């Protein structure tokens, strides 16, 4: 409970008092009554940052919760206006351990540790960014795993799709599996590329290798079907695969290898 008054001691009604826990960022708000008093019902003990807002007066913030019943005169920026604040958060009972922290005046606060408000204040926008990033990368991870199945099937089907005695049906199966792999890969890549970046983060560790592999399997996943179409066309005409189309197999193998290495790099600790 506390009271908000101006420099002359007159109570300020309808002021908004916001208490933000320095420890966990939880926010509570209260308004002042006609006598300038306010009350936070059941406010847990702890350190709080207090903000006072009222029409016609400059917003006032007290960054430290060590206010604790002490009256403080803080003049407003306007010469004729001012604020006097008395604030005392009302603690609620909590479980006491045999030597649990007390709420005595000798208890250090976060401001005593030299932590700046920026370090102690929560950032909901950054949290939302991280939530979105994680959500998208989870889909990226799952889609990558799902893509592995048709990728392996495509490689297996390729073994019987390129020989002299292969049937059209075998080649069609290989083509269909390759198409499915490409589509799933595209979705997988989309969620990695579109996942928001977190400013000020330096890429370190296995994720660097994972990203480096993308520069191999990414172009490979574009080149492989293009070369495959040329090879398919040559084969359908009864020709032996020749020219640039003969690179379809090697490019596909390098692409699949890079994709597998990327997957393993973030899955297994070497």
């Amino acid at each position, binding site marked *: 409970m506390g009271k908000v008054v101006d420099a002359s001691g007159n109570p300020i009604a309808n002021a908004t008092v916001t208490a933000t826990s320095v420890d966990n960022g939880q926010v509570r708000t209260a308004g002042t009554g006609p006598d300038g008093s306010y009350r936070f019902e059941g406010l847990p003990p702890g350190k709080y940052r207090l903000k006072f807002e009222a029409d016609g007066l400059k917003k006032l913030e007290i960054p430290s919760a060590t206010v604790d019943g002490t009256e403080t005169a803080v003049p407003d920026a306007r010469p004729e206006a001012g604020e006097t604040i008395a604030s005392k958060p009302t603690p609620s009972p909590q479980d006491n351990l045999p030597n649990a922290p007390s709420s*005595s005046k000798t*208890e*250090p606060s976060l401001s005593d540790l030299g932590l700046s408000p920026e370090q102690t204040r929560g950032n*909901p926008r950054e949290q939302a960014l991280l939530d979105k990033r994680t959500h998208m*990368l989870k889909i990226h991870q*799952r889609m990558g795993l799902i893509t592995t199945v048709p990728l392996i099937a495509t490689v297996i089907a390729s073994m019987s799709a390129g020989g002299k005695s292969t049937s059209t049906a075998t080649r069609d199966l290989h083509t269909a599996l390759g198409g499915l792999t490409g589509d799933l890969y595209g979705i997988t890549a989309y969620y990695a590329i579109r996942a928001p970046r977190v400013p000020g983060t330096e890429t370190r560790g296995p994720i660097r290798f994972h990203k480096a592999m993308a520069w191999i399997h990414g172009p490979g996943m574009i080149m492989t079907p293009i070369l495959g179409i040329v090879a398919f066309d040559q084969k359908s005409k009864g020709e032996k695969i020749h020219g640039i189309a003969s690179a379809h197999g090697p490019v596909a193998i390098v692409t699949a290898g890079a994709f597998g290495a990327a997957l393993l790099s973030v899955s297994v600790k070497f």
Partner: protein
Amino acid sequence: MNERILVALALVTLPAFAGADSQWVLQQSTLTYHVSHPLHQTEGVSHAAKGKGICHAGQCEFLIAVPVKSFDSGDSNRDLHMLQVTRGAEFPLVTVRTRLPESAAASAIINADLEIQFAGQTAQYKQVPFKVETQGGETHIAGTIPATLADFKIDPPSLLTMPIKSDIPVRVEMTWRQQ
């Protein structure tokens, strides 16, 4: 005007320490969390903890705080994911509070009751043992806090659809100096 505000705030703050007999300041620290996954055993380390102890009438109140994002597991992707699941941007600090008798510094082992705030939750750990060594005015303590994700209502993150274990023991090594 700013100076006057500062003076006013100082007046508010000073009484809090007026009765302190002595203080402890955290000089160095290494906090290491351990995460277990079927495919990984990972550790994240922070040296960024700050701490203070204020002693009065034979009892010392300690507060230690460490930024969540200061933990480094050697992989920036994992660290960002850890920051997300622990809601480290919304609740940027892990704080530990404990109260110990002033004579505890002379013991070989102290058993501390810890109140830890993390990820917007508060958990209490009773009688956590720490080894104590005092050398040349510095007191070294070492121990492990048996923390779990469940204590802080954190859903265990998964890798390849396999969740990590809830146990995340935190190894604590600290050097304190009395002032």
